[in-house]
């Protein structure tokens, strides 16, 4: 049965890692604006491509 103690410890550890990640996400402001990023992701690629082009030409 002692394996359960290890497993419990491990599962708690994983859960705590997720909790810390969540707190970090909130702290960095990811939950302050839940709308704009959903739009931003749609044109991010395109602008990068153009930047690359610019870098290439210069």
């Amino acid at each position, binding site marked *: 049965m002692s394996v359960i103690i290890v497993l*419990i410890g491990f*599962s*708690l550890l994983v859960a705590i890692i*997720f909790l810390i990640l969540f*707190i970090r996400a*909130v702290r960095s402001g990811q939950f302050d*604006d839940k709308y704009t990023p959903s*739009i*931003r992701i749609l044109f991010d690629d395109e602008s990068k491509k*153009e930047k690359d082009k610019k870098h290439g030409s210069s």
Partner: protein
Amino acid sequence: MNSTEDKSISEKLICYHCGDECPDDKIHIDDKIFCCNGCKSVFSILNNNDMCTYYSISDAPGITKKEENKRNYDFLDDPDIKTKFIDFSDDKISKAIFSIPQMHCSSCIWILENLNRLDNNILSSQVNFLQKSLSVTYNNNSSLKKIVTILDSIGYEPLLNLEEKRDSKNSNELRKLYYKIGIAGFCFGNIMMLSFPEYLSISPQDSAGLDTLFNYLNILLSIPVFFYSGSDYLVSAYKSLKNKIVNIDVPIALGIIVLFIRSLVEIIFFSNAGYLDSMTGLVFFLLLGKLFQTKTYDALNFERNYKSYFPLGITIRRNNNETTIPVEKIEIGDRLIIRNGELIPVDSVLIKGSGTIDYSFVTGEALPINKEQGDIIYAGGKQTGGAIEIESIKEISQSYLTRLWNNKIFSKQKEMNSISLANQISKYFTFIVLGLALISSGIWMFYDTNTAMNVFTAILIVACPCALALSTPFTSGNALRIMGRNNFYLRNVDLIEELTKITDIVFDKTGTLTISGRADIKYFGMELTPKKKFLIKSAVRNSTHPLSKMIFDYIESDYTITEKFDEIAGEGIYSEINGSIIKIGSLHLVDKERFEFSGDNTVVHCSINSEYIGKFIINNYYRDNLSDLAKELKNKYSIHVLSGDNKSEEENLKKFFGSESTYLFDQSPQDKLDYIAALQNADKKVLMMGDGLNDAGALRQSDIGISISEDKSNFSPSCDGILEAKSFDLFMKFLNFALYSKKIIIASFIISFVYNFFGLYFAISGNLTPILAAILMPISSISIVIFTTTGTNLYAKKRGLI
């Protein structure tokens, strides 16, 4: 992209930049047509900077730049002004935050986040679309002024007001709530997992001491929930008890404390499983309810005062040089230049030009007032027409408009004086539960002292009003969201319940019941031949007077441009077109011999070549659907109409609201406020609906102040709710919806009492096991959440609100 081009080829010419209809295709670059030079210049800026992606994300995303005058932003170099916008600054970089109400689509986000292509001193720019704010980080080779100028050049002029509060506190509060929910959810889930042996009734012998380990782990996990996540409830309960009030948080806090202590006792002294899963679950669900309740409309500002209406900078003439200075630095004797559409910030004397001042914002009078040189102009009016030069005679803090705000109603915080239903009930609830717990444990005392203690705590645990606490936030929160989707934005969820208590509705007239700037025009006189129409339309085209504009819109005809034109202030216009002399305006100007009683309506007379043609009678234009809405409203509420205008519209108003309603005219802002206060003294609950500054005091005084707005990004005075004009006809539905929400709340109270009744049965008989508590608690909470949200959604669907 193709679709825009198709549109511009097909019969209507659509501006490539802003999507407005173009009069002709004179203004163009290649095959792209623009409605005005402003739009064209924005396009060429973007085109030159390789930023035409802007136009491929959404069709015609631009903001029209019809007013082409280049604004002068010199005042932004003033250090006091700078600090209002600059969030952070060191010797290399600065970060500024602007509010840009014009942003409306994904193209806007794209362009505002690619500002660095227009100026490489801009390091990064980030949009928060819901708050309509833009934060720009730039190195100090650039300046605040340069950035604002760039933004203005592409049509996104930031809102530059004297006072626009940015609430960073709000987002901190929200973050805290997320932390609390995250921690409560984490602990709740793990405690549930560790309680599994208990749920499966594995006997302690089989678990080989693991159960003790699990129980102690549970205690460890529950500590942050009790002391951090649940702290709000404990603190709030303590505060309200200190004030000798029993609010909903008192029984909740009681439940949490009893659950925690009893669990500790069970685990430490009796090696039994505790109720920690119930406790953490309870806190988790309550916090979720709180999150649901915190729906706020970030982009809207409900706390505006007069300062938000003032421009930040004003053009002044000093030593024959025009420059801009911050409004606050205006001194007595300064020469100010006020252009078309600009607000007059201080009481002053007109020096140059002819003033046509629109005071509708301050007084509610629909038509502008003419001012001659030497006349005193009070602050708050807007100049319509050409630029004027004025000399200030008072400081900004002493002006007429500012004095409006010295009323004490504005200095005190508006508070909810009525107690919500949940709080009302919880008072009795707490005493009943405590009484029940004492009585039943007292009876058990005679049989078994141990059970007596168990019964006492079990009753407090079971009766913890989680469902009671959740029903209001979920019902009202959902109602608030549904109303928001229909363009009715309330400041907070408590107002849904307040709406149900309203007995009297007070309307402002101008801008609320009527649409400002639109009129109902009737023509009496000789038949208007196409030629006459042509002449009249051409004559009024030159005038900036609102009445001229109304007539211009009313007549359908071609028109021409004439140079022989004169506007006589207070009289009318004189114009010569193709040899015909056209006079439009007062009877005195048009035809001196003719005298006719004109009544109280606004009448514009017209003559061509000294021959009297006829008159235009201009009435207020009432909102469409007003008659339907008025019929429904007056059956249920007492209606009062307060107007800053004269009596001329009384008859028309009576058609809508009947003679049983109250009508008062020539009301000053103070009169309106006093009237509402008088109604409140007669124990009425008053809802005030208004629009401009002139209603600000009344909106503040009323129990619920709702400001109506043609466009939600427009200014609205401080209020409790903003109703977009296009949803005006839905107003009765909103009121009914609020009433229905209250019924749902009552029904969910009944459901939660049923659960409590069952729970109490087990508790009093001494049979409440941890597993039973762990099942009963979430089931009652979840069923309440489902019941309230589906209940409100179904109703809204039936009424066409979603």
